[in-house]
C-alpha cells in the first residue's frame, strides 16, 4: 500500500548538509498498522512527510496505493493527497473554524456537495464520539478531543491510508490509550492502512502489526512486532526490555534469562520445571508485556536444584524452542 524505495533526504541548513534519511526502503501492506520507531532526530517526521510529499526525497521513490507520487503533476498530486489522511502531534486544527467546519474542510477541497458534506460530518463526529461538539471551536476542546477531531477530519474523504506523526505524543497515558483504541477500530472497521511514527514503545506494542526501527536516518530493522520481540537480539526487543542491571546479589542457582513469546507465553513453564524436573525457579527480575493480543516477556530466573536436574531442565527449555541466555557469572 505504501512503498519507499531507496529514499534519501538531505537537508541543507546554513550551508551544512544533514542526511535525515539514508537509503530507506519500506513496505506497508494494505490493512496493516505499521509503526516507525526511533529516537528524536532519527528522521521519523521526515520519513512520514515523504509519504505525502510534504517533503520531497532527494533520492528514491515513494508510492502510495500503486501511484508513484514523484511522477505526478501538481494537480494529480493534489488528488492523490485527498486519498492520504494525516494527523499531527499538535493536531493542526483550524482555530477559526468550528469542529464541524474543520471536518468539512477536506470534503470542500474534494468538491463534495453541501448536503453530502453535512451528512458525512455528522457521521464522522459520531464515529469519534464528538457529536455534541460540532459547533465548538478547537480551543474549547481537550487534547484528546482535538486529536479525535483531527482523526475525523483526516478520515472525511475516505482515505485508504492514514499517516500519523506522533499523534499521541502530546496526550496523557489515559487519553493516549483511547486515541490508540480509536485508531485500531478505524483500521479494523474501515480497513484503513496506518503508517504511524512514534518514539514510544508503548504505542508500537499497543496497536502495531509491523514495525521499522529508524536510527540516524537508517532503517535498522523491520518486521512483525511479535516476531521481532520474540528474539532478544533484535533492536525492538532491546528497546522493549532494557538489559537487566548487573546483579548486586550472588545468584541463588543457575541464573538464566528467558524470553517468552507466542506459545511459550501461554504455558505455565515454571510449574512444569518444578513438577517434571524438581527444579525451583526463583524470579529475580522481568516483565511480561501485552503486545496486540498476545504476550511477550523476559524473565531473569535462578534455577535451583541439583546440577543434573537443572541441566535437564535447561535442555528441556531449549528443546521447546525457548530463547534462553545464561547470565555471565557475577
Amino acid at each position: 500500500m505504501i512503498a519507499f524505495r531507496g529514499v534519501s533526504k538531505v537537508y541543507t541548513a546554513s550551508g551544512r548538509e544533514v542526511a535525515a534519511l539514508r537509503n530507506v526502503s519500506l513496505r506497508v501492506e494494505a490493512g496493516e498498522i505499521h509503526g516507525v520507531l526511533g529516537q528524536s532526530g532519527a528522521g521519523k517526521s521526515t520519513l512520514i512527510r515523504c509519504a505525502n510529499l510534504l517533503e520531497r526525497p532527494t533520492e528514491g521513490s515513494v508510492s502510495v496505493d500503486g501511484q508513484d507520487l514523484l511522477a505526478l503533476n501538481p494537480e494529480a498530486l493534489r488528488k492523490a493527497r485527498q486519498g492520504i489522511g494525516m494527523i499531527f502531534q499538535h493536531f493542526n486544527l483550524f482555530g477559526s473554524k468550528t469542529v464541524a467546519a474543520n471536518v468539512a474542510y477536506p470534503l470542500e477541497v474534494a468538491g463534495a456537495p453541501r448536503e453530502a458534506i453535512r451528512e458525512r460530518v455528522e457521521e464522522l463526529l459520531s464515529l469519534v464520539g464528538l457529536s455534541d461538539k460540532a459547533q465548538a471551536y478547537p480551543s474549547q476542546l481537550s487534547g484528546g478531543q482535538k486529536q479525535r477531531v483531527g482523526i475525523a477530519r483526516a478520515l472525511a474523504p475516505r482515505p485508504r491510508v492514514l499517516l500519523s506523526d506522533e499523534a499521541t505524543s502530546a496526550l496523557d497515558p489515559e487519553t493516549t490509550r483511547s486515541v490508540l483504541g480509536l485508531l485500531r477500530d478505524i483500521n479494523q472497521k474501515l480497513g484503513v492502512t496506518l503508517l504511524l511514527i512514534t518514539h514510544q514503545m508503548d504505542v508500537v506494542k499497543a496497536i502495531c502489526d509491523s514495525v521499522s526501527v529508524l536510527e540516524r536516518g537508517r532503517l535498522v530493522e523491520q518486521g512483525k512486532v511479535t516476531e521481532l520481540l520474540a528474539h532478544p537480539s533484535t533492536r525492538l526487543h532491546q528497546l522493549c526490555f532494557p538489559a537487566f542491571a548487573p546483579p548486586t546479589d550472588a545468584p541463588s542457582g543457575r541464573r538464566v534469562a528467558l524470553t517468552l513469546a507466542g506459545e511459550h507465553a501461554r504455558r505455565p513453564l515454571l510449574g512444569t520445571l518444578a513438577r517434571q524436573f524438581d527444579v525451583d525457579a526463583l524470579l529475580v527480575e522481568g516483565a511480561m508485556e501485552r503486545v496486540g493480543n498476545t504476550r511477550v516477556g523476559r524473565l531473569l530466573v535462578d534455577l535451583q536444584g541439583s546440577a543434573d536436574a537443572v541441566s535437564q531442565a535447561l535442555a528441556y527449555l531449549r528443546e521447546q524452542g525457548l530463547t534462553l541466555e545464561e547470565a555471565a557469572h557475577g
Partner: protein
Amino acid sequence: MDSQLPRLLGVATGETLYMTSVAAVLVLLAGLPLGVLLVVTDRGGLWERPALNRVLGTLVNVGRSVPFIILMVAIVPLTRLLVGTTIGTTAAIVPLVVAAIPFMGRVVEQSLREVDAGLVEAAIAMGSTHRRIVFQVLIPEALPSLVRGTALVIISLLGYSAMAGAVGGGGLGDLAVKYGYMRFRTDVMLGCLVVLLVLVQLVQWLGDALASRFDHTGARSSR
C-alpha cells in the same frame, strides 16, 4: 467661544472622515493583496517567486522610508494626473493612499506570517489548492490580527490626513493650523484635538471589538 466653532469643526470633521475613509478602502483593497503576495512569493512560500518578492519588498521599504511630507510633494505630478488638481481633500487622498499601502502591506504580511505553519501544511496534506489555502486558511486564521492591523493603519491615516490637510487639503489638520495656530484660536485648536482623539479612540475600540469577535482561540471566544 463663538457660534462659528461647531460649524467649523463639523465641516473639518466631515472632510477628515471623507479623506480617511476613502483612503482606507483603497489602502485595504491594495494592501491586502500586497501582503498576501509578500508572504506567498517568499522562499518556502506557496507560490515561490524570489525575484518578485525582492522587488515588492524593496518597493515597500522605499515607500515606508520616505517621510510623508516629502512623499506628498514628490508625487504631486501623480496627484495632478489622477485628480486634476493638487489641492483639496480629494487630492489629499492620493498621497495618503500611496503612503499607507506599503504600511498596510507589511501589516498584512506580519499577520499572515503569525499563522501556524502547521495549518498550512495540514491543508496541503489534504490536497488544498493554494487559492483555497490563502482564502480559507491563512486569511481566516489571521483575521483578528488583520483587523487589529487595519485599525492601526486607519489611525495612521487619520494622522497623515491631518498633515495632508495642513498643506491645503482641508480637514481637522487644516483647521487647526489655519485657525488654531495662525489666528491664535485656542478653542479651535482644542476642538480639533478632541475630535481627533475621539476618532482615534473610536477606531481603536471598533478594531478591538471586531478582533475579539473573530478570535476563537482564547478563553474569550464566543459560546
